[in-house]
Structure formats: C-alpha cells, structure tokens
C-alpha cells in the first residue's frame, strides 16, 4: 500500500472512536505492539532527544526501501511512533521524503506535532526524512559513474 493509503486506513480506524480516551487507549495498545528496537541501538547515538519523552530510532534499507524500529520511554509516544512506522516501513526513500504525514494531525494529535512541543515526535519525523535523504544521496552517487564509490 502507498503511504497515503495507509494513512487513510489509520484515519478511518480512529474515526471509530468518539471519545478521546478511546483514542488514547488504542494508541497505548499500539505502543505496546511497537516492533522493538534491538537493544544495541538503544544508545545515545540513536537517541532523538525531546523535552519530555525520549525516542530511539534505528533505520536500515534494502532495495531502496527503508525499514525502522524504534522505542520510547513514554507509551503514547510509542503508540504514535508505531503508527508512523506502519505508514513508512518498506516505502521508498523518495516517497518518504515527500510524505506530508498529515494523518497525525487528522486523527486529532496535532498537539503532538506542534513545532513548539519538543516531545520527540517532530524531531523523529525530521530524523526519518534526513535518513531517507541521506540514503537517496548515497544511492545516487553510487549509480552515478561520475562519482567514485566510497562505501
């Protein structure tokens, strides 16, 4: 499925819930099912520091597609991360770079995305896009005969 299709899916899942607390209950559940990051990546070099909750993120790529695992010390943050990963896992670097990821706002979690809330999520999305950009650049260089290959 495309990024947009998964986003739409998530939005309709959340539309089921009338009550805020049900949404958060669902997020907490999602948070618990987050594909766990390998403990060896749960170190400071993979830490995305927010103000209130910490996020660790590890990305790798296969065939120009990116895959993520992550963790956070806050369960709700984990829930949102798990949604993000569901949307982005296995997508191409190009698509990831361009994804507006409007669903976080649409499912009513705008406050988690506001630029002045340093809760780790904004920095995480920024980080994901940076990864994608870096892989893309590396790839281009590799396929471009005018560049020597470095790694």
């Amino acid at each position, binding site marked *: 499925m495309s990024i947009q299709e998964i986003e739409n899916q998530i939005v309709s899942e959340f539309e089921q819930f009338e009550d805020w607390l049900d949404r958060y209950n669902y997020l907490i559940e999602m948070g618990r099912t987050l594909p766990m990051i390998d403990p060896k990546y749960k170190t400071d070099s993979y830490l995305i520091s927010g103000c209130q*909750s*910490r996020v660790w993120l590890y990305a790798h790529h296969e065939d120009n597609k990116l895959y993520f695992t992550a963790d956070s010390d*806050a369960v709700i943050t984990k829930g949102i991360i798990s949604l993000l990963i569901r949307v982005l896992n296995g997508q191409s670097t190009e698509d990831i770079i361009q994804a507006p990821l409007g669903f976080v706002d649409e499912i009513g979690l705008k406050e988690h995305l506001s630029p002045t809330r340093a809760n780790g999520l904004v920095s995480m999305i920024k980080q994901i896009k940076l990864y994608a950009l870096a892989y893309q650049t590396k790839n281009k260089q590799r396929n471009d005969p005018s560049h020597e290959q470095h790694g």
Partner: protein
Amino acid sequence: MVDVEKIRADFPILHQQVYNNPLVYLDNAATTQKPEVVINAVRDYYLTVNSNIHRSVHYLGQQATLAFEESRQLVREFIHARHQHEIIFTKGATESINLVAGSFGRQFVREGDEIVISAMEHHANIVPWQLMCAERGANLRIIPFHPNGELMMDAYRELLNDNTRLVAVTHVSNALGTINPVKDVIALAHGRGIPVLVDGAQAVPHMKVDVMELDCEFYCFSAHKMYGPMGVGILYGKEEWLNKLPPYQSGGEMIRNVTFEKSTFGDLPFKFEAGTPNVADILGFRATLLYLNTIGMNRIAAYEEELMKHALDRLRAIPQVRLVGDSPHRAGVISFLIEGIHPYDAGTVLDKMGFAVRTGHHCAQPVMDIYGIPGTVRISLGLYNTREELNAFTDALNRVIEMFR
C-alpha cells in the same frame, strides 16, 4: 474562611469545558488565572488614560503616572517594604534575578569569589549566576537537600566563607513545594555580612511575605503567578543595596542627564527602569493586590493549607503514587511519580479528562538529576481550587493507572 464558590465566580476562565469535561486547573505554579477585576483594570486603562508616563504635561499622562506610582505604593505595602523606591518594576522574576546577577556581579564579584545557591532552584535562579560566575572567574557553590526535599542547613553553614559574595535561594521550591527556612538562611549569611536574594516567585501567591521581617537584601517575584497580568515582575531591594548597584538596562526614563561624553542616572527606582514601563499591566497588578488584600493573604494561606493536606491524603492513599519531595513545610506544589507510567503519558491523558497539570522537569533539571528521574507530574494549587476538584483529580488518576495497567 475563604468562600471558594464566591471566589470561583470572579475567575471567568474556570467555567469552561475542555474535551467535554469541566476544566480543573491545577497548573497554578506555571501561571495562575486572573480575576475579572484584573482583566477589567487593564481594559479600563486602555479605554480611559493610556499614555506614556513621568514626563507628560498632559492630563492622560498625569492620570496614568499617578496610578502607576500608586501601584508601586501598593506593592510596597503588600510585601511590607520600607520605601516605595525600593520597589523596581521588571518584566518578570527571571528579569529581576538577571538584573541583580548582572549589576551585583559587575560591581562586587571578582575572580575566586563564590555565589551560593541551592540545589532546588528554578533555572531562573541558577543560570544567571552560572553565566555571571563564568564571566568573572567566580564559583557557584550548591546547598544540597535531603531526600525529603529540605535544605541541608549544616552543609549550607559550611559553604559560607570569606569568599562568599551573595546567597540566592528560593523561598518555595517550584518542583518540590518545600518552604525553605529563608529566615535562618538569611540570618546565617548576615552573620558573615553576606547579602541574600530570595526568589519568592512560588511564595508570594501562597502566604503573607514581609521583607523587612525576613531582612533579605533582594526579593523577587512575578505578577502572573499570583493572579496578576503577564509582563510584570517585581524586584525588591534594600535602598542601600540598590544604591550600590550600577544600572542594568539603560535608555529613557532612567536617565538624569545625557551627553555623548557622559550620562548620569536618575534616583531610585527609576535608575533600574529603562524604557517605557508596562503601565497597563502594572495597573492590572494593582487591581490584583487590592483583590488579594480584600480576601487576606493569611486566610488564603489557611485555606490552601487545608486543601494541600487533603490532596496529600488522597494521593498517599493511591499505592502507585510516589511523592517527590515530602517536607512537612510545603506550599502550592505537589510533585509525584506514578509507578510504571511516564509523567508525559499521565499528563496527556489527564488533559483529555479536563485536568491541567504539568509534567516534566519544571525548569529544575538539577532536582530531577538528583532523584535520577526524567521528571514528575506536578499539581499546583490556587485559591480557587476545591476539595471536590482534588477528589475528581485523584479519581481520574486511578482511571489513568487502570488505562496503563
């Protein structure tokens, strides 16, 4: 006793729904709500006498000037200072502290000197001293506190020495709620001739403060944390000390004479009030003080003490709750952790239930480092909070615990 229903009627913002739940505002240490008389005082100022003050020949300017200086007079009475010109208007407690750190540092702090602060200060009472010390080659010495949140007075005594230039401590901790024994802190410093700055931001809303009785050299606080408008802070300083300090900011108002060769500065309090002051909000603050005087700070303190006791009883009854800071001398603030639940998770869900609490390090990271925790959930009380709100809060807390189980 305080008639809390009558008081709540004075605060229009409290009567609203948040996510379809009645708002329960328990974030008063961050900023309090404002009674309608204060909101109206600001409005009335703009509707009737708004103008620049002190050098006006015209009617509006004269009215505004008189009201402005009346506000200063009222602040003086409120904190029981000796002279009106010992009251300096700033934009907030943070600026008040920066002013003293800047001017005191320039005048009195040399290489090898020491400034003493406590380990439970708000960043506003840490970083200005830290930067000033770094610039001047001085050292910052820290009074530690016991696990229950009380200052180690013996350690404090030992920190004082001939190099100590100033002691800066908080009256009430915004992270732990502890009321510090500032009178003893001051007396010990004075025993060695050392001046003391007290950060009263979290004290003034909750108790009667008498700066002459405390005998501190400097005392500072913010209007917005005590039912006043934003944009107003107070620096109280003993005349003798304010006279000894060089000006902080400079510009209009604070000047006696300006030539390109040399400028001379006005008398107190103007010497420390550069630029057009925030007349509107200072008049709003005057309305706040009149409002608080009508109720009486002693009655507010008594009411809040009851409320605090009730909140502590209810929280202690929840097995998963662990208080952070547990001094019997406490005002305004309760910080706690919930077993297995990140403060940010708890705060997010409580918000959806209508409860405004604060989570995180409360601008007191060193306190969190000492306990080895990333932050706490903090509730902080105001004179309009009720036992019923606290009951609802602890019930909600139990639901939160259920949700994350």
